[in-house]
């Protein structure tokens, strides 16, 4: 069931919140042995919350738009009573969080029920969904393949139908990559739109939080209840919430849509090119717009990420280097050694590039680009061959997402259900225009071009399918 359907059934007493919660916990028990998407389940707390929702309904009190909807969060969100591990071994020694992350509080204020915390790449410095401490989260359509990172458990849990909504973070692509690999919808809002209060950071200059879902309506529902200013996140906007759920059905009327050219049409496997052309054909889009200096934007995002990440973890690199995933540790140590003027230039280039792209948005409302260059690679796969050239997988998964998050543009990753594996396409809008990207995503869903395929990689008894 979608989140919208659960909330409607709970509000009209066709289903109780406790039943919806128990069903989610049962699915997790049945399927997560294969998917490995959850690192913690919060059954006791979830049932208590669900009982409270049911009691409110029985007492005739108004309930929120997510009444009884189970959801889960990447384990970098603070969950009261759990240490916020952020995919690491080191953080497990932290004291238990005293208070939930801001977005969990907002979801639960709308009636949603937190059922657990989700696997992720260590400290979010990852595009694969693999984790040396907890094992990899697995792709729900083929468990031998990556879920994508770093919000791998979020992609796996929603793609596998365990929960209708999950929350994750995106610094360079970590919502859009798992959405693409796991065949679901993901929203990376405008930088500063959603509060990051009480979540573990990676790169403060680039970190975003956002939802995953199996339909655009559910994505919008979760996004709407999470909006709003928050003084506990210095980057969070003071703008009033701009609800989008009521705008989805406005369709494509009046929207100018173009394909992102240059960098975004290079380094693509045929599946990624096919997904973009299906979207272009459905939207009747032929115009191609070059995004200036997109490859350099990706490089600057890389520099800011590795250096801010190194600064964040410097003390842990000094005192507990042996407790990191070695691959993450060695990237961060190298990041600590980048000369400072190069970082300052990257931040100056960021402002220059933002001005160029905002200029483009005077003549267009939406840009279409691939979300990933390929379908989900095999877990552990180190390289792929593209145009006869062998390239490292990890470094290239985010080449099309990084130039977009670098300047905080809102993006909906929409799943294109190719066979045998789905792949995502980015629907990119101007800052603060999430509603525009969501309208296009909704139109693609209505046209049947974008859809979250049913998981084929797991069976109810928890064994792998053939």
């Amino acid at each position, binding site marked *: 069931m979608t989140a919208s359907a659960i909330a409607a059934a709970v509000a009209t007493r066709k289903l109780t919140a406790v039943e919806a919660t128990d069903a989610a916990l049962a699915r997790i028990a049945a399927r997560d042995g294969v998917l490995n998407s959850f690192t913690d389940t919060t059954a006791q707390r979830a049932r208590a919350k669900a009982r409270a929702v049911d009691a409110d309904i029985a007492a005739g009190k108004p309930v929120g738009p997510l009444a009884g909807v189970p959801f889960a969060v990447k384990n970098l969100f603070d969950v009261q009573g759990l240490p916020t591990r952020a995919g690491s071994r080191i953080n497990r020694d932290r004291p238990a969080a005293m208070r939930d992350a801001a977005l969990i509080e907002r979801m639960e204020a709308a009636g949603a029920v937190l059922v657990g915390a989700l696997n992720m790449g260590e400290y979010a410095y990852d595009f694969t969904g693999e984790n040396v401490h907890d094992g990899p989260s697995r792709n729900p359509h083929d468990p031998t393949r990556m879920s994508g990172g770093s919000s791998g458990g979020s992609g796996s849990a929603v793609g596998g139908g365990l929960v209708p909504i999950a929350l994750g973070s995106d610094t360079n692509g970590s919502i859009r990559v798992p959405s693409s690999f796991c065949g679901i919808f993901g929203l990376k809002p405008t930088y500063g739109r959603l509060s990051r209060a009480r979540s573990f950071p990676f790169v403060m200059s680039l970190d975003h939080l956002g939802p995953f879902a199996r339909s655009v309506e559910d994505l919008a529902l979760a996004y709407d209840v999470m909006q709003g200013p928050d003084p506990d996140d210095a980057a969070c906007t003071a703008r009033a919430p701009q609800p989008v759920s009521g705008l989805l059905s406005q369709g494509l009327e009046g929207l100018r849509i173009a394909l992102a050219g240059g960098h975004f049409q290079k380094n693509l496997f045929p599946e990624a090119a096919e997904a973009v052309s299906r979207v272009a054909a459905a939207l009747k889009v032929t115009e191609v717009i070059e995004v200036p200096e997109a490859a350099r934007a990706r490089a*600057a995002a890389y520099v800011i990420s590795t250096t801010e990440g190194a600064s964040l973890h410097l003390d842990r690199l000094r005192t507990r280097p042996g407790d990191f995933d070695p691959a993450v540790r060695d990237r961060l140590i190298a990041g600590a050694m980048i000369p400072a003027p190069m970082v300052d230039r990257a931040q100056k280039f960021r402002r220059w590039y933002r001005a160029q792209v905002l200029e483009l948005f005077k003549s267009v409302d939406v840009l279409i680009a691939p979300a990933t260059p390929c379908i989900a690679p095999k877990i552990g796969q180190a390289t792929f061959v593209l145009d006869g050239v062998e390239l490292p997988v990890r470094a290239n998964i985010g080449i099309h997402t990084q130039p977009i998050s670098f300047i905080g543009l809102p993006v909906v990753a929409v799943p294109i259900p190719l066979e045998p594996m789905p792949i995502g396409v980015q629907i990119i809008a101007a800052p603060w225009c999430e509603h525009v990207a969501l309208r296009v995503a909704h139109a693609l869903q209505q046209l049947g071009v974008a859809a979250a395929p049913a998981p084929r990689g797991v069976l109810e008894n928890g064994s792998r399918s053939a």
Partner: protein
Amino acid sequence: MAEPSDESWDDYIDAVGRVLSLPIEDAWRPAIRANLEVSLKMAKLVDEFSLADEAEPASVFTA
């Protein structure tokens, strides 16, 4: 700009590692060097772009 030799990379890693008080084991060195080469290649791409003297960084503090 000439590419540094393996030896000079190691000297750089040692020197900056000492300044930052980072313990670096010999076994980690090849991976750190490889990452540093990629990161500096990215940084060089940014460095090569000509910016005006008046260019403001994106990270502007608001009082």
